[in-house]
């Protein structure tokens, strides 16, 4: 059981088996990921760690249906969603959501925060305006922003606040899984801390699962129960967070651990 006190039970929520994705460039297929398998149980966080070009974002996009899968299967709640499209994919978006890296680009600058947050609700239900607004206020409160934020535009917020808004959008439909693609790496360390705490609190409150994609092992150890290390499209390490930290098998993982510098930096006690 993990240290963060999250209950992890039951069958996998997300079960990825032997997944391969190739990008086609001038007829040649270049594999971005090869035979990747991983599973995430309800309420669990699995970190997908690797450097840029390792294929970690590709895997996230495949789960979200933004990239076509070449081979293998993705099961969500026991159902094959590998090639889900159209109405099925839209239905799925109630349960699977995403938070992206760039807090500047992931919000439409021409829409108010309220309009952005109401969007998934408008797609999936024909609720009254007041019901929609109520839910928007709820998720804003959940991510620690005032209700008035709904009437403002993204440019009126700092990077950290924008990332909170992006997280609020992911939460609107009360999803079971959120794919977080480098959600804190564009933020200052002090703001990273705030956002990471928010992820932890939200999981405790809502029981949501995270597929947490990052290049920084120091960041993921606060959230993840298990860590999968990708290197050039292959899984090179897979284990609980404690195992990976205590006894990394692959040299690349050891390099990542060294770079994370968790042990080296001197603690500053306030």
């Amino acid at each position, binding site marked *: 059981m993990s240290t963060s006190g999250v209950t992890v039970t039951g069958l996998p929520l997300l079960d990825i088996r032997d997944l391969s994705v190739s990008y086609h460039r001038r007829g040649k297929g270049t594999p971005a990921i090869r035979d990747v398998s991983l599973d995430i149980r309800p309420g669990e966080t699995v970190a997908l760690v690797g450097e840029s070009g390792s294929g970690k974002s590709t895997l996230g996009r495949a789960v979200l249906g933004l990239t076509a899968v070449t081979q293998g299967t993705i099961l969500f709640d026991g159902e094959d969603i590998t090639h889900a499209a159209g109405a099925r994919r839209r239905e799925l978006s109630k349960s699977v959501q995403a938070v992206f890296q760039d807090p500047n680009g992931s919000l*439409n600058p021409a829409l108010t925060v309220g309009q952005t947050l109401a969007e998934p609700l408008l797609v999936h239900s024909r609720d009254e305006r007041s019901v929609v607004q109520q839910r928007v206020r709820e998720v804003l409160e959940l991510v620690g922003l005032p209700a008035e934020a709904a009437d403002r535009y993204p440019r009126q917020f700092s990077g950290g606040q924008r990332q909170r808004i992006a997280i609020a959008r992911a939460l609107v439909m009360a999803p079971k899984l959120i794919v977080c693609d480098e959600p804190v790496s564009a933020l200052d360390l002090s703001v990273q801390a705030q956002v990471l705490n928010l992820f932890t609190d939200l999981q405790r409150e809502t029981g949501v699962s995270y597929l947490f994609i990052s290049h920084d092992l120091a960041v993921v150890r606060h959230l993840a129960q298990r860590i999968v290390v990708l290197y050039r499209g292959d899984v090179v390490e897979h284990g609980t967070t404690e195992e990976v930290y205590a006894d990394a098998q692959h040299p690349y993982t050891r390099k990542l651990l060294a770079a994370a510098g968790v042990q080296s930096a001197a603690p500053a006690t306030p």
Partner: protein
Amino acid sequence: MSTPQVPFVRRALGRPRITVPAVILVLELIASFGASWLAPYPPQQADFTAALSGPSAKHLLGTDRLGRDVLSRLMYGGADTFREIAIAVLITLVIAVPLGLVAGLRRGRIDAVLMRMADVVMSIPGIILLLIVLALFSQSMTAAMVVIGLLSVPGMMRVVRSASLTVGRETYVAAARVSGLGTWRVARRHVLPRITGLILVNAALACANTLLIAAGINAIGLGVKPPAPSWGGMMADAAQTLNQSLWLAIPTGGLVAVTAAALIVLGDGLRDTLAERWSGTSHATTTRRRTAVATTAAAAAAPQSDDAWLLAEPHPVVRLTKVTVTAETEHGEVELISDVSLAVGQGRTVGLVGESGCGKSMTGLALLGLLPNGARVSSGTVEIDGVDVGPYGPAQWRELRGGTIAFISQEPMVGLDPLFTIGQLLREAVRTHEKLSRKEATLRARELLEQVQLPDPDRVLKLRPSQISGGMAQRVSIAVALAGRPRILVADEPTTALDVTVQREIVQLLRTIQRDTGMALLMISHDWDVIAEACDTALVMYAGQVVEAGPTERVMTAPLHPYTRKLLAANPRLATVGEPIPTIPGTVPPPGQWPVGCHFADRCPDRVARCTEAPIALTQPDDQGVARCVLVGDELGEELLEVSS
């Protein structure tokens, strides 16, 4: 849309670029469609006694060769003109906008098919088709306008397609798809509002164009049959009688020209006003409020700060003394950095650390003479190699930059032109500083790549920026910076965009280069690991001020200012797993909203009454640095300084 439209209308009304053409067009429309009530004469009524007369009380715009009133005929001809424009442009928009959106957002096969169809339509000779249609449909202007509308579809479609392609790549479009939005909803909610301005401008151009074509058709007598009035027909009349009366050409041709110009100017104005709603670049508000708000921080008398420690660097290459940078904003003149002093000595590294929005980058830009438009050094001095560069003009700055001072940024790729090879980029950089032959420049470029420890420099010289990784790109941009053998390098978050494994390598590389060349380094970073590894001295900035400075080790192990302590603790790498990571609640106040007293007071756990009363000065408790905090004396248990001056 539930967007508040009132401010948009109000903004639009306050702007002559919109109101002038809008008033012209509205008056023309009223005069045209109300011609039967408003026109002084029927269009056909001839007064042969007054043929070809100039403007008079009876005929405000004169008469034509049959003595018909020009003003009345222009009014009667207007309705047809506007109807023709509307038909053609509406047909274009109704077909081209949806097709362009689909092509740009769905891409793939649909895109390919639509684009090939567009190519086919574009290859049709328009004028010939127009003449055929006019012949077949007995000079029907409606048929002609339908043809013009259809022929304009491919052009408009291409514009919409390429704009949607660009907007479609934005992360928020991916986010919307993940939210379950189909192509149409994505198009309507996320893409269309972003490209409305572009469509407006192009539609306005199409209107103007159609106006001219329609006038042309009528002028050569293929459209509206005389004696029915048309703008084009009247222009032709004017041309025929040009040797008898010059006047006639002025109201007829002038009206067409003014109308076309009004349409184009209106389109431009509307686009700018539309974009302002969310982009935050309002011009009107700037002028209106310029005088309203005084600079709050400057208004209060600044206490005498103890800058001596900050300026006491051996052999300083750069020195900033009490530099304040201000900018014109919609809230008046606002301070961006306030009273910043720092010096970097030869071979030394000074780190600027703090959260985003604290003024670290602005300090670096002040030093580089690269302040953004509207910002300026309003007080204090910037010295480079002992020379005050305050009065320097652009040419002198250019000579300094890349020579004595160099710069690397967070986004190495942005600085590398994708069209050129690394070799070409480096040779260009080398030759702007030294007169070298092509061969010598190549040698020097190779040497620079070796200096930044890139393996196989001969191969790298032939690569283009798109073919190298982020880490390599940062090394190349360092090599470009080194081309002028700089005495100081300003590095703004040079590792932030890189993988953790590469970050440390870049910091070590900068250290090595420094040891070899004796270059001074100003390192801007929010990352304490980078500061710890690279810097001799650390300056902590908060909301535009230096709040603490000292030898890096002292600052990181025995911080004086509460902000430094909180910032050091709020580090996910140091926090205990399983417990909440320590954070600093709240956000950095933006420029213009700084409090009079301590800028950090609102977020500070140790705040006392004195903190918010008056500006806080830098104090120097010992030879280990300075801090801007009223409690610094108390904390050291020495009951020291009465801070306010």
